[in-house]
């Protein structure tokens, strides 16, 4: 091969290499152009879409729970308030060794070994930045101790939350009720769903005013827009829309009276309602035994819950509005009013009581075995004669008795924000036919005449009935004070004044005449004379054999079989201001058990505090003094109202 050929080949190859370098350069340039074109598409053409996606990535909405409206009594004393709940949370990622930190914490506050293990377990299940609640409801002292020791407790964060707290809880439990964490069932019944309910464990009203006025008390949630990172951790707040706190509610209840009544009824399965006759304001509504609603706020234990459920005295039940009892002799005013209104009997007309009333082959008995002899209407009320009212009821008839009962407020539920309101019951012929398929018998009417048989009334209804009789007006109860609405005088009942005066006089005689059934429990202060009516409602049937051998005394019967004791009254007699009813379940006789309680409560209201013993008959003063002093001591020791709130 010649050297020449070699050189041409070499120069040819050199040119090829040059060419290819340039070609490769061009290819690279086009590759770069392609990249540039793609970047242009992403960053200029589609940029807006990607910006939205980036925002969706990073922005999260968080709800800020509104602070719940407070509940006050009529004088502005707080009953349900939001208490600062001192708690500590633990964030795993900030603690080096969580187990060690918990051990150190256990030296400062009480923290069981089991609880520590549970916390560590919970932590493992969640992301490392999620705070886990370690302890709640700490005392200020413990909280301060933790705060001071924070440098040695990495990951522990003291926090202050708001938790519902009920003052004077025992006497208010049945009215105010309680809140608790929302359940799936609660969510279903809410439509449309308030977004605030999606906050885990958000507390809503479960019972009572808390439940019924939930919409007012709840308020509106605020929204906090926060920036989160890829693992969901909050980095910072972008903006915040303030929510609205719930409305405050003012009850018509007077706390001092409420507490006195509660204390007076303590130990019994009983209830009492005191109404201001002029305004219809319920000043006191008590049911015993009671429970501690604070236990429900953070979740009640299973054993506490079943204890409440299985108690035969039913602490969870608001007996004043949910308990319906045969009204017994307190119903006799209804029959009397109906008869007088219809002119079926005159004030001086007398009916003879032989101790029983014959209807066909059956005898209807009077409570007084020997009978009362000849009686006028007022005397019949005073002595609570059964035979008189058998006769009268028969004259009036069940339909017209029912009409009068409804006019006086029985057989209906009032528009009150309370749960489990009972309507009571006023029977009719039609109802019996539908319910039992049997016709109404005259005997049924006789039973209705003395408040036995089918009729049922709640203590609240009895108080309303008494208030209506005392005022002649259509008093309707209310439990929420409404300062905006000027409640005008309730309209008149359109019952003749004569009728009302006669019945009031009869009721006055019950306490203030020698043979009145509650004469023992009269007052001696002339300004504060009470008029009332006793009632004893049977919860069992007295057989003929038993009646012949002598009716068994209540004290000898098992508790569940004893009669209910009822008493309803108003005062002062001359210028009625308050109506009151007291029902003691299985208490025995109304005159012996319910009347003295009613007198104490009524006098407390009339005097605006513990009544002086001089208001009682001389013979009772010693006993009364001991009783009242005892109650006063208990009330004072229980006071837990913070006047600064």
């Amino acid at each position: 091969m010649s050297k020449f050929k070699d050189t041409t080949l070499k120069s040819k190859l050199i040119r090829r290499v040059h060419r290819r370098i340039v070609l490769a350069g061009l290819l690279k340039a086009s590759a770069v152009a392609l990249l540039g074109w793609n970047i242009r598409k992403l960053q200029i053409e589609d940029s807006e879409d990607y910006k939205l996606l980036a925002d969706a990535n990073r922005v999260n909405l968080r709800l800020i729970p509104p602070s719940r409206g407070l509940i006050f009594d009529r004088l502005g004393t707080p009953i349900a308030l939001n208490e600062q709940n001192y708690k500590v949370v633990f964030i795993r990622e900030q603690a080096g060794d969580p187990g060690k930190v918990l051990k150190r914490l256990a030296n400062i506050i009480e923290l069981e070994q089991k609880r520590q293990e549970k916390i560590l377990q919970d932590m493992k299940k969640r992301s490392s930045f999620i705070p886990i609640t370690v302890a709640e409801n700490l005392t200020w002292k413990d909280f301060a101790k933790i705060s001071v020791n924070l440098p040695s407790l990495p990951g522990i964060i003291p926090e202050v939350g708001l938790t519902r707290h009920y003052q004077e809880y025992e006497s208010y439990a049945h009215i105010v009720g309680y809140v608790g964490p929302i359940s799936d069932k609660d969510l279903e019944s809410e439509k449309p769903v308030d977004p605030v309910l999606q906050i885990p464990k958000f507390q809503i009203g479960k019972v009572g005013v808390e439940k019924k006025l939930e919409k007012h008390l709840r308020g509106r949630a605020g929204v906090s827009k926060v920036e989160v990172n890829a693992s969901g951790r909050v980095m910072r707040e972008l903006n915040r829309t303030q929510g609205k706190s719930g409305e405050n509610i003012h009850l018509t209840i007077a706390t001092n009276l409420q507490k006195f009544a509660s204390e007076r009824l303590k130990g019994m399965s009983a209830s009492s309602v005191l109404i201001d006759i002029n305004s219809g304001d319920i000043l006191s509504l008590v049911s015993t035994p009671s429970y501690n609603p604070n236990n429900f706020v953070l979740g009640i234990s299973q054993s506490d819950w079943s204890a409440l459920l299985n108690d035969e005295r039913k602490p969870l039940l608001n007996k004043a509005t949910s308990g319906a009892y045969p009204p017994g002799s307190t119903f006799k005013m209804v029959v009397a009013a109906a008869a007088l209104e219809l002119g079926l009997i005159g004030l001086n007309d007398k009916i003879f009581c032989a101790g029983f009333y014959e209807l066909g082959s059956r005898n209807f008995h009077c409570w007084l075995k020997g009978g009362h002899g000849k009686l006028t209407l007022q005397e019949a009320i005073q002595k609570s004669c059964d035979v008189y009212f058998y006769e009268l009821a028969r004259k009036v008839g069940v339909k017209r008795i029912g009409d009068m009962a409804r006019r006086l407020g029985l057989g209906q539920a009032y528009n009150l924000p309370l749960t489990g309101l009972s309507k009571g019951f006023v029977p009719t012929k039609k109802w019996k036919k539908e319910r039992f398929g049997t016709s109404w018998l005259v005997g049924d009417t006789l039973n209705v005449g003395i408040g036995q048989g089918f009729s049922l009334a709640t203590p609240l209804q009895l108080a309303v009935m008494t208030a209506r009789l005392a005022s002649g007006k259509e008093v309707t109860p209310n439990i929420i004070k409404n300062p905006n609405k000027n409640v005008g005088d309730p309209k008149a009942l359109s019952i003749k004044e004569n009728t009302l005066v006669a019945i009031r006089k009869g009721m006055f005689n019950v306490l203030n005449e020698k043979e009145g059934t509650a004469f023992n429990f009269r007052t001696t202060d002339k300004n504060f004379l009470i008029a009332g009516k006793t009632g004893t409602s049977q919860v069992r049937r007295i057989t003929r054999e038993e009646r012949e051998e002598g009716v068994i005394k209540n004290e000898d019967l098992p508790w569940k079989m004893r009669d209910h004791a009822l008493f309803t009254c108003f005062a002062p007699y001359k210028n009625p201001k308050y109506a009151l009813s007291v029902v003691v379940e299985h208490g025995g006789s109304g005159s012996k058990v319910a009347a003295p309680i009613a007198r104490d409560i009524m006098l407390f209201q009339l005097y605006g505090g513990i009544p002086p013993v001089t208001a009682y008959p001389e013979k009772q003063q010693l006993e009364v003094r001991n009783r009242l002093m005892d109650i006063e001591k208990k009330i004072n020791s229980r006071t837990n109202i913070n006047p600064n709130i």
Partner: protein
Amino acid sequence: MNPFIKIIYINWPLQILILATALFGFLMLYSVSGGSWEPWTKPQINRFFISFILIFVMSAISISFWQKISPFCYILGLALLIAVYFYGDTGMGAKRWLDLRVIKLQPSEAFKISMVMVLAYYYHKLPVNKVSHPFYVLVPLLLIIIPAFIVFRQPDLGTALVIIMIGIFVMFIAGVHFGYFLFGGFSFFTLLFILFQSRGTDWQLLKDYHFRRIDTFLDPSADPLGAGYHITQSKIALGSGGLFGRGYMQGSQSQLNFLPEKHTDFIFTTLAEEFGFFGTIGLLIIYSLIVAFCIFSALATTDKYSRLLITGLCMTFFTYFSINIAMVMGLLPVVGIPLPLVSYGGSSMIVIMLSFGLIQSAHVHKNVGF
């Protein structure tokens, strides 16, 4: 010639462009660490300036020296690849790293340089009439395929493919007959077809995760929270940057950890998000200028070794940034290739600076000859 005088003849524009790119890197690393010198910015700066001085030192050494040691470099590189296969640290299911106490080396990266060196040496020595002779085509092919196979078994498919690509490219520049490349291209696509056919059979040629990555690449939206997450988030970051970007240290995607590997392979997305279109195109232009100056330098040299060495190393640099950018934009599957001079990492930094040292040495000695 006095070594200090040689420095005057260095390719200064190239050197300045390298510095500019590195500054981009420092800026971005400072941003992704949330405005802090630690843990990435400071080590990166130290590494860069040490290796930047290394470029000057290397450029002062005669190109004939580098030419002479080329075969030894290749043998050393191959030995390291084998060593890493047996003794390497395992990371992310692959043996890629060799702990040499002083530095943790990724031999497959360093091997790219020694392979370019040996191929340049080979064609420098090969008589021109034998360039397209089948036997003399087979020899460099083996020089490429054997190490590529070792890297593939690490397993590191991405780097293996890049090694093959660079090797073939050097052969192409060296002037091997065009027919071989046509044939090679045809075989490549046939092989690709067979690869996909093998999926799910018992003679499957690739690991499952390779196939999954390819699936993700083809349709990232199919699994936005799983395998496609990186690409989806990366595109969101890129796109949301817009024309001017969200501002330095203001990129929500990168600052809030939505981006994977934000300090290494995905650092381009942070740049794109915070500096927008101007930032990305700016970096792309700097990269292109580096490549352009290398090409001019290659065309200016007189000997074949220098020419092939510069083009080959320039191609290495080009594959780094083009594949990385294409990858974060979802144009290529996610393979672990860093953004040169910007991504955090010692191994790739050293390799790139070494190759620039060689390029500068060839440039300085272009008229000196041998």
